């Protein structure tokens, strides 16, 4: 009997050492496309086409053996001070760069250089998304920006929206001490997402490979942090996520909790206030 029990336990451990399936796929909603920034594809996102083509530079990088695509947008030449700053923009979990181009316009209007890239499996980028792939893509994007001779590498700001917050926080905590970190509608962690859906305090690793944990990493961040979150966010619910990150973050930190905003409309809802908040934060902590 004792031998059978030992064999059974050994069998369980052997089986559990192999993950036959994970739920990571549910984290990503990529959309493949043949071409970027075609006006007909951008109209639904209220893109204003304000950035001159001469300032938009298509970029391809290699990540885990796959080609990934991005765009480097040179800051508005009229804004001599702000175009010293480069925003590395990590987008959300759905679609591709087209969906987020309007955000690039906002940041460009403020005068900043912006680098936006598609993760593996998104847009034209090869491969398929995973936690490892997204972190690798983030690393490659950062190396690319750092290697450019026309930017000030001491003034790189990581900006992560929703899923992109995991990459931005990972880069700031584990890879490079950026000048600042901006998180918009950031989920706390996969643990928090699990508890949100199942109420039980389960460990994220039970269901997903991706090491997506903003709460764990935020304590290791040494740069100034700006957090933005809509209090009516019906996807990453404010009460169940934002305080978990905020409480662990160390100073200097600033917040923008927007009463009426949902998951994806903080800039649109706030208008000039969004611009002012971001510019003031960057002026204070990056340009000062």
């Amino acid at each position, binding site marked *: 009997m004792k031998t059978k029990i030992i064999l059974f336990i050994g069998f369980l451990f052997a089986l*559990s050492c192999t*993950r*036959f399936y994970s739920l990571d796929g549910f984290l990503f909603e990529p959309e493949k496309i043949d071409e970027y920034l075609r006006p007909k594809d951008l109209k639904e996102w209220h893109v204003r086409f304000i950035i001159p083509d001469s300032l938009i530079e298509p970029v391809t990088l290699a990540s885990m053996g796959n080609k990934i695509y991005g765009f480097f947008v040179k800051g508005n030449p009229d804004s001599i001070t702000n175009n010293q700053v480069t925003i590395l923009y990590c987008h959300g979990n759905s679609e591709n760069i087209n969906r987020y181009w309007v955000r690039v316009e906002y940041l460009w209007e403020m005068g900043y250089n912006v680098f936006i890239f598609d993760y593996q499996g998104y847009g034209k980028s090869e491969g398929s998304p995973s936690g490892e792939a997204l972190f690798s893509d983030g690393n490659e994007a950062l190396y690319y920006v750092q290697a450019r001779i026309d930017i000030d590498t001491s003034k790189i700001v990581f900006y992560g929206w929703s899923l992109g917050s995991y990459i931005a926080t990972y880069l700031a905590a584990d890879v490079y001490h950026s000048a600042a970190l901006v998180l918009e509608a950031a989920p706390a962690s996969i643990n928090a997402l699990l508890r949100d859906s199942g*109420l*039980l305090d389960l*460990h994220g*690793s039970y269901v997903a490979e991706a090491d997506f944990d903003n709460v764990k990493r935020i304590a290791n961040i040494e740069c100034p942090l700006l957090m933005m979150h809509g209090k009516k966010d019906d*996807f990453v619910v404010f009460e169940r996520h934002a305080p978990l990150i905020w409480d662990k973050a160390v100073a200097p930190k600033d917040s923008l909790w927007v009463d009426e905003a949902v998951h994806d409309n903080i800039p649109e809802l706030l208008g000039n206030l969004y611009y002012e908040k971001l510019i003031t934060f960057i002026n204070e902590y990056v340009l000062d």
Partner: protein
Amino acid sequence: MIKIAKVIILVCLPIISFLEIVSCGTVTSVRPIGKGRSAITFSSGGPVTTIFDIKMPIPYSVLRYRKGLNNNIDFHLGLHTTMLVLGNIGLDAGVTKHLISQSGWRPALLTELSLYGLYHMNEFSSIKAFPAMSVIASYQLTNKGHALYFGIQGMAQYTDPYLVFSTLIGFEVPLGARLQFNLETKWYAPNEASENRVVDYEIKPFDYGAVGFVWGISYKF
């Protein structure tokens, strides 16, 4: 009166059972299996949600072994096979105690105490344990062992919400001398608002909790 109720239930049973099979489901111990006897149960189900564009109960499955310690108490050990597929060890162990026998309209009562444990490979910080308790009332409807049961299950944890509970109603259908089939409908966390959850549950009565289905098949020996 009792006879009419039995007839109604027995007529409705196949129809409801069919619906539950189609939409998937989950199960619990209803009565002790008797001293020295054993049973193996495979059950699967959970709250209904959309998976790959199909509305279905989350297919969370458990393989459970039961052993009758005496005529009133069973011991059980469960292996959570879905967790195994995901690279984890999920086990539960506990006892079921028969409390009151059925008499007229008074149902039989039993309680089950279990400890659930989960662990992800090579990650000791992932170890979690949850004590659980359930109270199940049951009516045996026929001499063959058809039974209707209902009850409440609670699981405790060290964080808010400290108690997660569900209510259930189910049927037990004997399939010969050794086999038995169970179907349950559960209302998970009926006290928790189900709005704005990451997983969009399909059946949310009054926007609270989530309804799901579980089926199970047992072999006694």
